[in-house]
């Protein structure tokens, strides 16, 4: 057991945790997006409501969701620990002149991550908590009752400032992914000249397309497209 503790307290072991939880959260983003895109259907939110009902009641999904919360906290917690460790390693005396030989997002993952964490809290309060504990009005399809989450989404996405905040947070997620996706593979040791171009292409495409589609939904709802 000692070796296992040594493994996960070493810098490399903690980086492994960052990479694995990060990749899980990337998968989660893809699934979440697939669900959200149903809001773009012009069916008064029926498809989305049926999907949301399934996601909030299915026991398997509920178990994965618990894991998801745990991984978000683990990702944030381990990164906080590593950041403190890294600050200490750098020392008190900084450089007077500091070069920029790396991309901006790679140097500011902590700030981007903090923005995302704050967003997640707001997001959970406004939607997830309402779905679980708030009195959401119900709607009936084919004689079965469903909570009308799409109506709640429509209320929020009718506020200009909320849409702007949402889009800002999606930009932060985009920059976080721009470095994070590729970085996770590098940390796992998956660096190979044959597959690097694919990892880089998918990573960068994912970092642009996924947040852009997430942001497109409130914009489309706000501007009634």
């Amino acid at each position, binding site marked *: 057991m000692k070796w296992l503790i040594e493994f996960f307290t070493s810098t490399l072991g903690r980086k492994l945790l960052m990479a694995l939880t990060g990749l899980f959260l990337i998968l989660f983003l893809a699934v979440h997006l697939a669900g959200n895109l149903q809001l773009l259907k012009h069916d008064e939110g029926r498809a989305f409501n049926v999907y949301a009902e399934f996601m909030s009641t299915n026991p398997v999904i509920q178990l994965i969701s618990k894991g998801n919360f745990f991984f978000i906290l683990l990702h944030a917690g381990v990164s906080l620990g590593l950041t403190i460790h890294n600050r200490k*390693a750098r020392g008190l005396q900084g450089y007077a002149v500091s070069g920029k030989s790396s991309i901006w997002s790679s140097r500011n993952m902590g700030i981007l991550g903090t923005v995302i964490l704050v967003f997640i809290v707001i997001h959970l309060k406004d939607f997830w908590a309402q779905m679980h504990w708030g009195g959401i009005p119900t709607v009936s399809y084919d004689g079965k009752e469903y909570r009308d989450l799409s109506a709640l989404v429509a209320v929020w996405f009718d506020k200009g400032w909320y849409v702007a905040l949402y889009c800002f947070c999606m930009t932060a997620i985009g920059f976080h992914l721009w470095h994070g996706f590729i970085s996770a593979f590098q940390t796992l040791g998956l660096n190979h000249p044959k597959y690097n171009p694919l990892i880089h292409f998918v990573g960068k495409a994912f970092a642009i397309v996924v947040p852009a589609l997430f942001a497109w939904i409130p914009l489309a709802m706000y501007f009634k497209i």
Partner: protein
Amino acid sequence: MKITLKVWRQKSKDTKGEFKTYQHDHVSSDMSFLEMMDVLNTELIKKGEDPIHFDHDCREGICGMCSMYINGQPHGPLQTTTCQLHMRSFKDGETITVEPWRAQAFPVIRDLVVDRTAFDRIQQVGGYISVNTGGVPDANSIPIAKKIADEAFDAAACIGCGACVAACKNASAMLFVSAKVSQFALLPQGHAERKERVEKMVNQMDAEGFGSCTNTSACEAECPKGISVANIARMNREYFSAMISSYEVKVGGGE
């Protein structure tokens, strides 16, 4: 050429340092950066002042001793060692800021000289192979693919100057350690102690207080020997597989 130098001056490890500005009017564009420092030091000695202390040895770009952080970059604006940097890389009248490597594991000893023995201690726990040499083996008795040999050689080109640590925002030594791990992991001679080596070296690296890698690749961009971050991925693979499959060896940093 005339230049203004802003140099970090610090009497000893425990005293507080500060920048001092020097006007340097006798600079030829053909001088190396270290030669320029020599001329400045000669002037300082003539004036009865304390010369600026800095590390240097071979002045051929192969020993890894020179270590100045020039205008925000380790070894200055070119991807070389400081000794191979020439004054033609700077403009006439330019102000050049010279600082020591900054890292908790590399304490400043004096002026621009830092203590890099942390690297030696990492090497001492596993950066070698133990074999009984015996008789001289026939050439090519151990076949090694050319590409693998080249890869190992590229990793072995690391001179341990510490520019990777200086460039890294986390003061991580992973490029250095991964180069040292890779040069042996790639070759059959290194396989006997492969797992033990990576475990010990990574543990020593952590014990020395170096930071963790966040894959910014600043180290690769600044490394005078062009060591690739692909080595860091290799070290990660080596470490993960060693940790989950090795026989329990006594790991943990040395004294």
